[in-house]
């Protein structure tokens, strides 16, 4: 409860190791009222394990750096309050499972930066000068939802397509970057054609089986599956198999 001033000793289990191996280690750490898991990890660093590796920046849920798995669930450590656990419950913190471990809680997330480069960038209209852009709020709302993404990569970590199938990584961009395609497809002024088809053919949209795990872990509460992935699948399917769309595209190409 906010307002009380309780303090207790928590049982914490943290994965420690590197790319050659490691394991869970048990610690007892003080917890004060209102604290989050990242506070406890920092106290552990300051008092018991000064070289414990953890990635973090803002500690305010805005930068998406401190992603880890807490009791097996992908979460931001800075936004997970200790009060969500019982005081006698052991809290287990492990690195993101879908990415290679560097050390302790820090993983190599370069997969995501590679995938970001594979998404064709915003392609503005050539004839529009800076200052001349006009867009209605209702038309930018949809893409703005996706631009709330803080790139914590929790959706990339939880997605079963890569979490349990390393070999899918080559063909699959993951929810975050499929959503980026949708964001640009819905951008009122993007002129790039065939984004739905690209998402399907080049970025592996077809591998997504809409289990909504990505939406569940999103700390920004973005409706990734319902608002980004499913509409994109529908667009890809419509264009591909709808003979009228196919003919329209042949006869009246945009741009």
């Amino acid at each position, binding site marked *: 409860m*906010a307002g009380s001033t309780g303090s207790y000793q928590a049982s914490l289990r943290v994965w420690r190791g*590197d790319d050659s191996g490691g394991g869970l280690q048990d610690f007892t750490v003080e917890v*004060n*009222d*209102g*604290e*989050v898991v990242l*506070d406890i990890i920092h106290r552990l*660093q*300051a008092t018991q394990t*000064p*070289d*414990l*590796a*953890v*990635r*973090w*920046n*803002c*500690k*305010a*849920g*805005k*930068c*998406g*750096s401190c992603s880890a798995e807490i009791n097996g669930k992908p979460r931001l450590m800075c*936004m997970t*309050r200790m009060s969500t656990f019982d005081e006698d419950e052991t809290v287990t913190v492990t690195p993101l499972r879908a990415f290679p471990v*560097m*050390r*302790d809680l*820090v993983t*190599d997330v370069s997969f995501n*930066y590679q995938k*970001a*480069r594979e998404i*064709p*960038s*915003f392609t*503005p209209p050539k004839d*529009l000068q*800076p*200052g001349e*852009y*006009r*867009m*209605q*709020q209702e038309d*930018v709302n949809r*893409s*703005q939802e996706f*631009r*709330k*993404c*803080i*790139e914590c990569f929790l959706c990339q970590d939880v997605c079963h397509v890569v979490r349990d199938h390393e070999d899918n990584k080559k063909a699959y961009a993951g929810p975050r970057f499929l959503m980026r395609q949708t964001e*640009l497809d819905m*951008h009122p002024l*993007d002129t790039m054609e065939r984004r739905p088809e690209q998402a399907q053919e080049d970025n592996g949209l077809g591998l997504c089986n809409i289990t909504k795990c990505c939406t569940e872990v999103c700390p920004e*509460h973005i409706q990734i599956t319902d608002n980004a992935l499913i509409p994109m699948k529908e667009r890809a399917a419509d264009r591909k198999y709808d003979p009228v769309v196919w003919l329209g595209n042949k006869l009246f190409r945009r741009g």
Partner: protein
Amino acid sequence: MAELERHAYDVVVIGAGGAGLRAVIEARERGLRVAVVTKSLFGKAHTVMAEGGCAAAMRNVNTKDSWQVHFGDTMRGGKFLNNWRMAELHAQEAPERVWELETYGALFDRTKDGKISQRNFGGHTYPRLAHVGDRTGLEIIRTLQQKIVSLQQEDKKEFGDYEARIKVFHECSVTDLILDADTGGGQRIAGAFAYWRETGNFIVFEAPAVVLATGGIGKSFKVSSNSWEYTGDGHALALRAGSNLINMEFIQFHPTGMVWPLSVKGILVTEGVRGDGGVLKNSEGKRFMFDYIPAVFKGQYAETAEEADQWLEDNDSARRTPDLLPRDEVARAIVAEVKASRGTPHGGVYLDIASRMPTEEIKRRLPSMYHQFIELAEVDITKDEMEVGPTCHYVMGGIEVDPDTGGAATPGLFAAGECAGGMHGSNRLGGNSLSDLLVFGRRAGLGASDYVRAMSERPNVSEAALEEAAKMALAPYDSHENPENPYTLHAELQQSMNDLVGIIRKEGEINEALAKLAELRGRLQNVAVEGGRVYNPGWHLAIDMRNMLLVSECVAKAALQRTESRGGHTRDDHPAMDANWRNTLLVCSTTEAATSEAMVPGVTVAPEQQLPMRPDLLEVFELSELEKYYTEGELTEHPERKG
């Protein structure tokens, strides 16, 4: 040295926030090869935490706005200590820089006629801040990040390599700048020495130009809205390379940080809450800001709640609410209310948006604030008031630069954004930071490009310089008789700066802080770390402490010298603003080179007079307003006086 990774670039940009990325884009667009080096992952820099907006006189909401009005507001906000040329360039160029972001793909909130919407903010005469809800910084950094990716895609098409012209070195920390070995004393920039956080291995960048864009220094204070990255790296790198810092006594304490629970104390509550109609109240339920309109702003702000609320409805028919006075004024007012026992149970004041706006409107306009309070404090801001208090937020002081090019005193060294000084004078207006980093990030990128292209002979990096840099970085791994824990040193520094050189200062306490800093400087020589070099946060902090101690020394020494109160520098023992101090800058420089035996060099502080403001800019202000700030002798050139 063996096992040293070497790279050669035209320009190395240190820092990947808004200023750094905008500098990268500019240098790349001018055909140069650029490295951007950042302590964090690409796209995570502190710019993501900016909430309220980006100030630019685009005139989308009120056509009375102009660059001159924006310039005037900026100077007023900084209590006329600003570098007026920077304030001029900033006000003139900000609209272009914002519009340019739209061509990169940014999606700002819109007006009814489809233009970029603009919101009210403290100290700005008209609605001026381009914004995206309360996550404007995220939009800006992501846009710049994605623009860089698009440039890399172009380079891939042209050269077959994404990294042919821009390479991001992320989770890589620069520890020292390297000066040219060939110029005897070594004045020019020749490169930068760094380590990979992931492996602990060293890396050297050979480059004739370095742009510093490392942000602020807030992690030297206990209660801060800043992330761990804000350890004053650029400030310290510039000092050690022979450049100067100015205005280091001016630190902005943002009036509204969270105060409870303790673990989130200091996290920012955006000024957008007040911009959109939120009001400050004390424990008696009184809107106290009407009691705190200072003499210099009398007549410019509403004097009753009715007038303030009328202004919210229609900017032109009433004066603005004093809830939106510049941040230094609001922060001091909150401290005074708490001191007078009219604070909240946790030592803040109340910020009320719940009674001012329907629930859905709050959630739409301030979504991050809604989530932040629900998730971290279990407070529903659509129903209850927030508890807020001042938090260390921004340093107005920074590297002394040429306004037009961003060039520092050391040839080849450039700086932009928070780590550069001058633009904001003694106090920054909200919204002027995001526009600052776009305007001056671009200018520093341009300045560095011109410098490199005009150069006939490239500088050289000496092995001796690299060896000394490596020795300093590895010192925490040497054996020490009385080993010190870096986390302990950091906590003691934060406590001292917070208590003794914080929002309200006095001579005795500043001297106490300086004694503590001297002690910590000695103990830093014995700092020791456990573990290896692979991703070792204890070691990283030990290295960052060098910078924090050096920069804190500048803050304390400058604060001691300035015997007046102005903007982000309040002296309890010199409470008045003194016109004789208005044009004086305090310039910090080092007295010796840093070595592994003395890793934090001594600092000296000297006064310097600014160039008088150009007459055409002086005319932006009424004589009667200038008389509140200037000495008599300075105003003889004002047209109203002359004629």
